[in-house]
């Protein structure tokens, strides 16, 4: 009876991040090493949220700058702290886009019109698929989209809890709801677009 329940999400694991080494340098946080370790995954997470690489890198940089200027007292939660700052910046950026849904829709379509794919149908189809996913994410409640992206980025439940400032016992519930919400949003979009 346990066969289904024994299946693990981790057997189809999201892209794994390297474990953060313990920062025990006598001088304090080894900032540069931490930066080199986290730069790429953080940029990718912000890119999935925002859909714009330049903006993702700018916000990633701002997040590290804030970490440098005001490091948290507890160094064991650096990753979660960093993602909390970055995702707040990302969500604020989304809110600042006045007509973000229309922007995404228009940008996706304009991009497809203005930049003819160098590859044939596969490249075009890939861009359309990514556009659909991003529109589905944008149509969700921001915190729901956020928890999905954080989990997909490989954060543990404990890290997600600190990043989103929620109780660890809430993560499973909110994640299950977010997955349901995403599936509904993605399916609805597919039906509309035909």
């Amino acid at each position, binding site marked *: *009876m*346990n066969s*289904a*329940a024994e*299946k*693990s*999400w*981790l057997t*189809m694991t*999201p892209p794994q991040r390297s474990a953060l080494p313990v920062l025990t340098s006598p001088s304090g946080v080894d900032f*540069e090493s931490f*930066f*080199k370790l986290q*730069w*790429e995954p953080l*940029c*990718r997470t912000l*890119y*999935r949220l925002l859909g714009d*690489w330049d903006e*993702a*890198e700018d916000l*990633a*940089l701002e997040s*590290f*700058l804030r970490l*440098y*200027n*005001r490091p948290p007292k507890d160094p064991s939660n650096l990753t979660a702290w960093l993602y909390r700052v970055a995702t707040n910046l990302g969500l604020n950026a989304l809110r600042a886009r006045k007509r973000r849904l229309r922007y995404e829709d228009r940008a996706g379509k304009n991009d497809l019109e203005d930049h003819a794919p160098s590859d044939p149908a596969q*490249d075009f189809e*890939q861009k359309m*698929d*990514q556009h659909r*996913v*991003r529109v589905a994410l944008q149509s969700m409640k921001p*915190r729901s989209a956020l928890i*999905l992206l954080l989990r*997909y980025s490989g954060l*543990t*439940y*404990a890290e997600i809890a*600190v990043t989103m*400032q*929620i*109780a*660890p*016992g*809430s*993560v*499973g*519930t*909110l*994640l*299950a*709801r977010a*997955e*349901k919400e*995403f*599936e509904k949003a*993605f399916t609805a979009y597919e039906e509309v677009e035909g």
Partner: protein
Amino acid sequence: MRLNTYHLGDGELRAYQDHSLVGKDLERVRDHLSVCQHCNTRADELLARAQHVQDTLSILDRGVEIQPEKNLPAALIRLAAQIESEKEKQSMKPSIFSRIPRFAWTALIVIAVMAFAFSFEPVRALASDFLALFRVEQIRVVEFDSDQVSKNFEQSSKLEFFLSDQVQVEEKGTVREVDSAEEASALAGFPLRQLSNFEGQPFFTVQPGASMSFTIDLELINGILRDLERDDIQLPDNLQGANIQIEIPAGVVSSYGDCNFAENQFDPDQPEASMKAMENCVTFFQSPSPVVSAPPELDLTQIGEAYLQLLGMNAQEAATFAKSVDWTTTFVFPLPRNYARYEQVFIDGTQGTLVFERNYQYGHYTLLWVKDGMIYALTGSGNKDKALEIAASIQ
């Protein structure tokens, strides 16, 4: 185990699938799944959905041409340049509220939101026949040992997320600083009381009101209680889906004396020096009581007892305390005893609570009281006599 009525929640199943359960929770879920076909079927459904979502999200990573790892050296240079050019600020925003002890604001704002929400009985029903109202008329202090309270509870930062994941907040304006009591009074919407024994010109900061609403999420709460190893705390089923609305009126902080917040910025690494620089500043906060609305059929006193248990009271203590309080009019104020001490005083014709922070040598106090539906908070540096002398000058 009541297999015919008890089933695991989706959150527990997802956490189990993600290997995020440990100890007794893991054992409990595993044992249940060994005998419950319903939950195994549900687990399969959740797993299939999670797989589908993951596959769909992976589309975002396909064919990505920009590679941030190639930009790493340039990013490091940009970061170094910004660090060099930006002036480091070790301060909080210049704000009058930094003078007021953080726990007091936690109580006044967060607990004003939450403790009210679960500490009242229906007073009357409106024509809409589904709302009950509550206003503050007095304050009652509950001491607790913050070292004993679970770290998870303290780190569940926003207390409102204890009851709901979706708290809607609408702020009604922006903070404004004015020079006259008349203008502050007009902006806040109530007549302003003032201290009469200070020389010099005070200034007034008007804090806008706010509306908050949320729907109680019982599954979320039970998850948190399990986290805190307090699944012995029982909450009524009819809590689920209850809609709570809270109206927080505008408030005014009047600043007297040497309150130059721009120059004397609070340095969290040197709190004593910061407080010394502000020892000649007195702040006086006033605001009408928040108003809480909720379905009258809810037994919210039971929720209040649960909250008191989370603060460290045992079930009997919590029940006894709950019975001793007039929940329709009392603001229950949690005070961490290892951070502050308090005593009851008589002020402004009524009973007040005088709180002293333990960690500062300059005798920093906060005096709290309620009168005629208004909440007042006076803060400054000095001893009890000084606090009462200043409060006695209020007109």
